[in-house]
C-alpha cells in the first residue's frame, strides 16, 4: 500500500483537533486529517473512541476545544450548506412522516412545498423507501429509519456527506445493497463522503482512505489507503487480491485497542 495514496485535492482537513467534554473527559486528541475531494474516507475505531465526536466536530455541531476544521480553504464556524450529516441515532421527528422528515432540510432552506416534496420523493425512491413516505418513524424498522436519515441528508445536495454508522441498523443483505447503492450513487454524483463504521470489511470495501483511531482518547493510530479498483462490477471488489490482506492488516493494528 502506498502511504500518501496520490489522492487528489483536499476538500476538508482537520488540524490538531482535540475535544474535552466537561473539562475532564478527553474524547479526541490532536487529530489531523486530510480528506480528499470526491473520495470515501472511513473512520474506524473501538466503541467510545470519539468517532461520533470527530464527525460532529467536522459537521460544525461541536466546537473543538483545540484545533480547527478547514473546508475549501476556510475555517468553519458551524454547520454549513457544504456538509450534510446522517445521524447515528437517526434524529427523526417522531411526529412527522417520512416525507416531512426527508424534506426538513429543504424546508429550512425555504424551498417551496411542491419542489421540496418532488426532490424528497426522488431521494426516498433512491434509498428504497417509496411507498413509505406517509408513514411515521415509529412505523418503520431501524434500517428504514436509517435510510430516511440518509435520504434527508441527500436532499440538500451538499458536497460533503458525513455518515455516522449509516448501515449499522440494517441486516446483512440490506447492508450490502446499501453499500452497493452508495458506490453507484457516488459514481453518478461526485461527493466526498466521510463515514464512521465498526466494520473493517465495510471500511476496506468502500473507502479510499481508512482512518484508524486509537482507543479513548481518540487519536489517529494509522491511515491506510485501500487501492481497490471500484470501476468494474461492484460484486468483484470483494474478490480482488489484497482485500483480505488489508482487512487482516487493519485488524492487527486495531486489536491492541480492543480489550
Amino acid at each position, binding site marked *: 500500500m502506498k502511504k500518501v495514496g496520490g489522492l487528489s485535492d483536499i476538500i476538508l482537513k482537520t488540524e490538531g483537533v482535540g475535544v474535552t467534554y466537561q473539562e475532564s473527559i478527553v474524547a479526541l486528541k490532536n487529530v489531523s486529517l486530510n480528506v480528499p475531494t470526491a473520495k470515501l474516507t472511513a473512520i474506524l475505531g473501538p466503541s467510545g473512541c470519539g468517532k461520533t465526536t470527530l464527525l460532529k466536530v467536522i459537521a460544525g455541531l461541536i466546537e473543538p476545544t483545540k484545533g480547527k476544521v478547514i473546508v475549501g480553504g476556510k475555517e468553519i464556524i458551524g*454547520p454549513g450548506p457544504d456538509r450534510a450529516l446522517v445521524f447515528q441515532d437517526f*434524529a427523526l*421527528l417522531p411526529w412527522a412522516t417520512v416525507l416531512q422528515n426527508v424534506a426538513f432540510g429543504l424546508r429550512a432552506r425555504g424551498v417551496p412545498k411542491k419542489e421540496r416534496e418532488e426532490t424528497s420523493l426522488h431521494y426516498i425512491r433512491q434509498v428504497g423507501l417509496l411507498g413509505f413516505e406517509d408513514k411515521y418513524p415509529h412505523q418503520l424498522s431501524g434500517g428504514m429509519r436509517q435510510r430516511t436519515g440518509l435520504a434527508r441528508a441527500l436532499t440538500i445536495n451538499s458536497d460533503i456527506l458525513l455518515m455516522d454508522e449509516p448501515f449499522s441498523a440494517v441486516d446483512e443483505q440490506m447492508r450490502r445493497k446499501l453499500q452497493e447503492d452508495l458506490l453507484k450513487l457516488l459514481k453518478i454524483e461526485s461527493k466526498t463522503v466521510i463515514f464512521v463504521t465498526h466494520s473493517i470489511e465495510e471500511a476496506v470495501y468502500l473507502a479510499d482512505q481508512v482512518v484508524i483511531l486509537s482507543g479513548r482518547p481518540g487519536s489517529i493510530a494509522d491511515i491506510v489507503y485501500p487501492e481497490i479498483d471500484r470501476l468494474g462490477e461492484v460484486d468483484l471488489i470483494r474478490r480482488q487480491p489484497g482485500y483480505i490482506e488489508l482487512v487482516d492488516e487493519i485488524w492487527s493494528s486495531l486489536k491492541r485497542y480492543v480489550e
Partner: protein
Amino acid sequence: MSDSQNLASIPENSEINSSKVGTKVSLFLWRLFSFFLAFSIWELAGRADISIAFPPFSEVAVAFVSMIYSGEFTVAYADSLPPLLTGLCITIIGGVFIGISIGLARSAEWFVMPLLIIFQTAPVSALIPMLTYIYGISDTAKVVAIVILGMPLVALNSYKGIQATNPSLLEMSKSFLASRVDTILFVILPSAQKMIFAGLRLGVSGAFIGIVLAELLITPTGIGDLITYNRFIARYDKMFATIVSILAIAGLTLSLMSIFEDWLFPSEKHK
C-alpha cells in the same frame, strides 16, 4: 416501546377504520358503565342513612333538574362564569406564554423558576383568603384566585416540555441550518405539545378549584354561594346538585380541550 403494537395495527385502511369505530363504541360503553356503577354506589350509600347530609343520587338528580328550570343555576352561573372565563383565558394564554418563554430563554430561568416552584408546591389555596385584603369582594379577587391556582401548573409544564426537547433533534435542526424560528415551530413546539396540553388540563382543573374556593372563602356569590346557602338551609340535595354541575362543566371543558388538541395536531392520532 409500543412500536410493535402499532405496527400490528396498521394493516389495511378499511380495517383500521372499522376497528377504530369498534374501539370507540366499546370505550363509550365502558364509560357509561363506570358512570352507572358510580351512581349506583352513590344511590346505595345515600339510602343507607349514613347521614342526612348525604342524599342518594336520585334525589340529587331531581334537584339538579329542578334547579335548571327554576333558574337558580342561571342566576348563579351568571355571577360565576364571567370571572371564570376571564381567569381561564389568562391562565391558559399567560401560562403557556410564560412557560414557553422561560423554556426558550435560558437567561430568564433563574429569575422565574423559583417563583413557579413555590407556587406549585406551597398550599396556594391558603393565600386565597388574603386576596380579600387586596382586592376586596370583587370579580378581580376571583380572577386572581383562578390565575394563582391554574397558571403556575400551565407555565411549569410548558417549560418542562420545552426543556425536554430531544437534544439530538436540536442538533439535527442546527445541522440542517434551520433558523431559530423554524426550530421552534417544527422541532421544539411539536415536541413540547404533549406536556403543554397536560399542563393545560391540570391548570384548568386548578382554575375550577380557584373559582369555587374564591366564592366559598372570599366573595359569597355565584356557584360558591349556592353551595354555602343550600348547606346552611340543609338542602343537601341542592348542594350536591350544584357541586355536580360545576364538576360537569369542568369535565366538559377538559373534553373540549382534548378535542381541540386532536384537531390541532391530527397526526398524533396515528400513534
